[in-house]
């Protein structure tokens, strides 16, 4: 299957239906895990089950999956893209290619662009550029405050009508509690989801990595976990006050997990995410000032990493994100304290996540749930499910295939991966968006 640049705007011609046969069908939402086949027609899942076999449906092409896994395509709630403003780092087109190669069929792009996505026209721009250039579904998350400054509320209602899937303040936390209260309260009227980055800027005080022994040894300024947890605590109180739907974009430490668990136990509309980096790496990976491991929130210690894994295993952490953040050499080839935060992750999220499945810490269903079904629920999208009538956004996964991450082969324009030369077991073989193959592993 040859993937070509899709620049035409005309609707695609009616495609023949396709059956995926001899597959292990895994639907994390329903718990389905069965051998069988799946019929794709008109961009949706037309049927699935044991009865779909090679030649069972007249006039369909069929793809023999050889017993490999067919699962809902991944939905990534946090992708920083350079378009508009920083196209040299990444465009929607290149990010979408990276996504397709990583089994990601839907990505939410963050508003931290130049200009910031805080205006109806910019939401419209993203949607049109994505339609014209991207291989996967793209949903913009809009800024909840103008220019992400944390001073004035953005036009949440108009932005939502224009197609903003949720609201966030990007990589900046809203320090003003009154503004945060008003945003949560106002967004509630629209049922909109507020996604918040957690870092108290004063407490973080220009820190560049996790506070503790490693930072002290390296002579780098530390950020205590409390900078995250205090902000989360405050937000939970405001959720209680307002009843707004709230999603902690990324948590990174055990104390934050405990705050989330308590809030959920009290029935508050609170959910949270964790990045694949915080599930699989810790502060020791920074070693001799390796800037590809610099990110926000910073990588924490091993106990915090284990807490994150436990949180996904128990379901208390709802969503895994790639936190894909392309950065060029000009931002990364610097002394650690002066380097940019961020790591690319769209192509490596599944492989890195499967490490946790292979070492027995997270079941396949829990992993895929956090990567597809749960984000679909939070964003109220139709995907993330293997059921009749759902969009045929699918990924065919070889759970066992060994491969090595070669930064030069990454489809992302920027190559700042912390998984340079990492050996993974398992990857996406074919990715389908609306029934159409957009990636085929060569």
């Amino acid at each position, binding site marked *: 299957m040859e993937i070509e640049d899709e620049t035409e705007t005309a609707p695609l011609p009616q495609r023949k239906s396709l059956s995926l046969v001899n597959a292990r069908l895994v639907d994390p939402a329903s718990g389905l895990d069965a051998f069988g086949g799946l019929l794709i027609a008109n961009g949706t899942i037309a049927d699935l089950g044991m009865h779909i076999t090679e030649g069972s449906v007249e006039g369909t092409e069929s793809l023999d999956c050889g017993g490999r896994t067919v699962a809902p395509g991944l939905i990534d709630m946090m992708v920083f893209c350079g378009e508009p403003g920083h196209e040299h780092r990444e465009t929607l087109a290149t990010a979408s290619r990276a996504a397709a190669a990583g089994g990601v069929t839907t990505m939410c792009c963050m508003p931290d662009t130049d200009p910031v996505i805080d205006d109806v026209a910019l939401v419209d721009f993203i949607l049109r550029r994505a339609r014209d250039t991207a291989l996967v579904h793209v949903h913009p998350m809009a800024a909840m405050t103008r220019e992400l400054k944390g001073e004035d509320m953005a036009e949440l209602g108009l932005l939502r009508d224009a197609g903003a899937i949720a609201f966030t303040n990007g990589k900046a936390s809203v320090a003003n509690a009154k503004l945060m209260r008003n945003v949560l309260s106002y967004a509630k009227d629209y049922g909109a989801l507020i996604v918040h980055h957690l870092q108290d800027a004063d407490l973080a*005080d220009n820190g560049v990595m996790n*506070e*503790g*022994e*490693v*930072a*002290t*040894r*390296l*002579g*780098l*300024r*530390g950020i*205590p976990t409390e900078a995250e947890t205090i902000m989360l605590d405050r937000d939970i109180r405001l959720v209680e006050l307002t009843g707004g739907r709230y999603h902690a974009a990324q948590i990174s430490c055990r104390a934050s997990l405990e705050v989330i668990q308590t809030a959920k136990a009290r029935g508050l509309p609170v959910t949270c995410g964790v990045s694949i980096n915080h599930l699989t790496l810790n502060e020791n990976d920074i070693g*001799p*000032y390796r800037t590809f491991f610099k990110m926000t929130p910073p990588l924490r210690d091993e106990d915090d990493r284990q807490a994150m894994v436990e949180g996904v295993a128990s379901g208390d952490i709802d969503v895994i994100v790639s936190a894909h953040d392309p950065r060029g050499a*000009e931002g990364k*080839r*610097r*002394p*650690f*304290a*002066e*380097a940019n935060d961020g790591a690319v992750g769209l192509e490596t999220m599944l492989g890195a996540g499967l490490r946790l499945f292979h070492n027995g810490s997270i079941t396949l269903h829990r992993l895929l749930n956090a990567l597809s079904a749960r984000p679909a629920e939070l964003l109220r999208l139709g995907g993330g499910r293997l059921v009749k009538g759902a969009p045929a956004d699918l990924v065919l996964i070889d759970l066992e295939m060994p491969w090595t991450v070669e930064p030069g082969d990454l489809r992302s324009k920027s190559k700042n991966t912390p998984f340079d030369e990492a050996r993974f077991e398992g990857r996406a073989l074919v990715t389908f968006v609306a029934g159409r193959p957009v990636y085929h592993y060569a």
Partner: protein
Amino acid sequence: MSLLDLSQAAAEQSRQVEKKSSHLRGRTLINLFFEASTRTQSSFELAGKRLGADVMNMSIPTSSIKKGETLIDTAVTLNAMRPDLLVVRHHAAGAVELLSQKVDCSVINAGDGSHEHPTQALLDALTIRRHKERFEGLTVAICGDIMHSRVARSNILLLNTVGARVRVVAPSTLLGEGVDRLGVESFTSMHEGLKDADVVMMLRLQRERMASSLIPSQREYFHFYGLDAEKLARAKDDAIVMHPGPMNRGVEIDAHVADGARSVIREQVEMGVAVRMAVLQALACHLPNE
């Protein structure tokens, strides 16, 4: 200990009328300072000249060019001029190591942010050895702004390696998280921290620390952490007083103590030249000759 022995010999060479040797004859040494320095830069310059090298000083104030951008660019540019030795100071931790990856010559760390300052620790060790003739079993109290001090980090590493017992003394806001796991005993009281110490090493207090609310005032700092005769009396009778300079008299150290009989601060400066000669000479043995 060969580096310290070499330094001792260099110290003797520096006290002769004829101070020059030819270990680095024909070699080019560049002092590349991204952060202002008086004594480190001049002592490397003298050390290079006494060994017969051509020495060039480059001071690159960070304000003139956007931070960080200069580092790799400057490294590549300088590398093209084919120096044999680069002495580098930078305001960011890890910057010297990053630069060393981009050049073909020997690179000496003359201080990188709050990380390390290896030649300072060597000159401190040499000074201690000249007075105490050993390291094993000595108690060294490092006092002051431990959190931001590269001098403290390098001294902790070196003194632990040679068998001294290292204490750090500072208010909790200047100790640094996890400092206990660096192989030191930590104290928040000078009274306890200096008790029976053989060496009292004071650190410079930057004025910015007051601005960021780490300590309330100079006056209060001097009262509790400034080294005066009374606090020094807690240490052993033959304890020596050290300071990497430049000193803030009346902030971290009383003028009488700084200039007193137990102060070896001026000797530290002399040993600074000697240690840097030894480091350069040791590296010169391994420079390519073709």
